[in-house]
């Protein structure tokens, strides 16, 4: 299993859609074969279409508000001693998280395909909120599938979705979280694929959805590359790019331009959700060595039992609370290009507290997992090491959880 240089990772799969011969694919019911094939052809065409690219760049700039800033966290750096800590503040993007890139691209594709309805899944509510925003912007009717448990714990984002005119469909089956939302969304698409476009909220699902999402979030690392060069005059020699990983869309977007670099120069570190310290449950298939399995149309490392039933997951962060992970991250793990670890709920909460105490930054619980790792390793590293954390979401949505757990107002 080997990574290729000079080819975007989203295109390094074989003819059946597998990365490294075993991750990904399209395990879908027959009914979805045609709509998936149509979407695959459309995307192939659009990504080479200059007019479409111009449109994408226009909306990325004027609607999403790129580039998001790249800042040094001086106080945190000084406090910890050791490596410099920087943040790519992706949460500045319109809507408050990286999910807006994928949502915008899907809305544009939906328009291009002449479909009027768009549906999507959401965990933390960001994917849903952004899809509802993009749908409103482009005049599409929008339905969002969300686990009943997540609807309760991420209320601010639900309010936003409703305000944007989207219908939230609560999902009561299974664990009532993201995994069930994705299943229900796929079921809905099976029944309505003739007039409805489906957006998968992360780099998961059947091959084409992994690709579209990765293609969309890659904007983050394109910006960062330019920003690094302008800040340091060249790409520095010791960089660590730390990103949380649930499905893995922000991490892929944050890393895509840097995968070709030697890992001694640019280390890629993915931080999964370790769940509560005292719980056996987690959402960390990569770092806790889960076996390969098939979920939602793709093969990936997967939290499952020996029979192949999908395990319940547990995390304080709804956005990371997913038993599977992007096949591209499985590939990056097995080729040893990226290193994966996890942070517990408590570590993420502590990190959130520390970052907000020292910096004018309010990372949501998802990137707080990444900050936890940065805080852990920074003191042991040299001062010329540049740690960059993708602060990919804003904590406004976590208001209720933070109040409960940290007494925050």
């Amino acid at each position, binding site marked *: 299993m080997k990574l290729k240089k000079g080819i975007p990772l989203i295109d390094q799969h074989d003819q*059946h859609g597998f990365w490294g011969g075993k991750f990904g*694919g*399209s*395990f*879908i*019911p*027959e*009914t*979805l*074969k*045609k*709509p998936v094939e149509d979407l695959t052809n459309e995307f192939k065409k659009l990504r080479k279409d200059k007019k479409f690219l111009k449109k994408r760049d226009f909306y990325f700039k004027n609607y999403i508000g790129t580039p998001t800033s790249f800042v040094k966290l001086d106080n945190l750096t000084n406090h910890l001693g050791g490596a410099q800590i920087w943040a790519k503040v992706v949460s500045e993007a319109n809507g408050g998280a990286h999910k807006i890139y994928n949502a915008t691209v899907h809305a544009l594709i939906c328009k291009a395909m002449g479909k009027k309805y768009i549906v999507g899944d959401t965990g933390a509510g960001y994917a849903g909120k952004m899809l509802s925003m993009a749908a409103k912007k482009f005049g599409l009717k929008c339905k969002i599938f969300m686990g009943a448990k997540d609807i309760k714990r991420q209320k601010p984002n639900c309010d936003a979705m409703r305000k944007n005119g989207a219908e939230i469909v609560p999902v009561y*089956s*299974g664990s009532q979280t993201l*995994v069930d939302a994705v*299943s229900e969304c*796929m*079921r809905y698409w*099976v*029944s*309505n*694929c*003739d007039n409805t476009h489906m957006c998968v909220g992360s780099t998961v699902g059947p091959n084409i959805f992994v690709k579209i999402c990765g293609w969309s979030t890659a904007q983050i690392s394109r910006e960062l590359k330019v920003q690094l060069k302008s800040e340091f005059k060249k790409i520095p020699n010791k960089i660590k790019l730390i990103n949380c990983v649930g499905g893995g869309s922000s991490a892929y977007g944050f890393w895509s331009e840097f995968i070709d670099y030697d890992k001694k120069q640019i280390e890629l570190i993915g931080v999964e959700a370790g769940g509560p310290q005292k719980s056996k449950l987690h959402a960390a298939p990569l770092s806790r060595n889960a*076996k390969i*399995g*098939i*979920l*939602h*149309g793709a*093969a990936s490392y997967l939290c*499952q039992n*020996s*029979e*192949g*039933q*999908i395990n319940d997951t547990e995390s304080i962060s709804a956005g990371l609370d997913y038993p599977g992970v992007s096949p591209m991250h499985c590939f990056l793990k097995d080729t040893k290009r990226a290193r994966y670890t996890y942070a517990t709920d408590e570590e993420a909460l502590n990190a959130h507290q520390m970052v907000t105490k020292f910096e004018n930054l309010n990372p949501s619980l998802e990137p707080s997992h990444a900050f936890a790792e940065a805080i852990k390793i920074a003191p042991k590293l040299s001062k010329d090491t540049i740690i960059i954390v993708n602060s990919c979401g804003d904590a406004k949505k976590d208001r209720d959880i933070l109040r409960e757990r940290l007494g925050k107002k």
Partner: protein
Amino acid sequence: MSSLINRAFQNAKSENRPALLTYTVAGDNTKKKSLEILKSISNYADICELGFPHNTPIADGGQIQTSAYRAIKNGIKINDVFSIAKDFKSKKKDKPIILMGYYNMIFQYNENKFLEKCKKSKVDGLIVVDLPYPENKNFAAKCKKKGINFIQLVSPTTSKIRLKKIIKDSHDMIYYISMLSTTGGKLKVSPKKILERYRKIKNQNKSKNVVIGFGITEKTIKSLKKADGLVVGSAICKEISNSINKRQNAVTNVTNIVKRLKNKII
């Protein structure tokens, strides 16, 4: 020699009616009960489909989900599914049984081991919902080698060229999904339209047995009786749920439904 599945269709044809296929979930609501149900309904059904339950069934509607969750909650394991099948076949050796489920369960069990176990349990066929053509080519070939029918699914969205290839690669039976829906959806396409599409599939190769499934209930079954076979699943699972809720005998109630279904297509 012709397969049991083939013979079941021939038999129905000789009686001038479609074959009746039932779907129940193994272990719903217990291992013992599901075997009893299976044995009892097989007096009226021509072919029995037995689902091996998965907790993330992306193509199933509410009724079958409920049955699957119930079975898993009651501790059903894949080896129990095989033992139900084996037990059933020891009593009803001429009644074809088809296992149906999602690929991850087979993948975790190991494809070869799974098929070996199917053979030992005398399973006649397999339907794998999320392993479409052409990705299923290898596995389908393995099935054939073991004398197990791999049943291809086709749907209203299947293109002409694709349809040709799938039929060419199919074994004795093809499963036509009546409409864009998960299992148990309300029949939203007219029976006339469904049969029109059905005939297009049938005309490609008359020797293949084509069954129609999804949305078939006591109300709709008669209108589709021109097909080679008709599958009823959700309506049966729903009756199991009802019987449990009302504390009635699920075996009797489900058998009565299947009996009524059969009477409608004679």
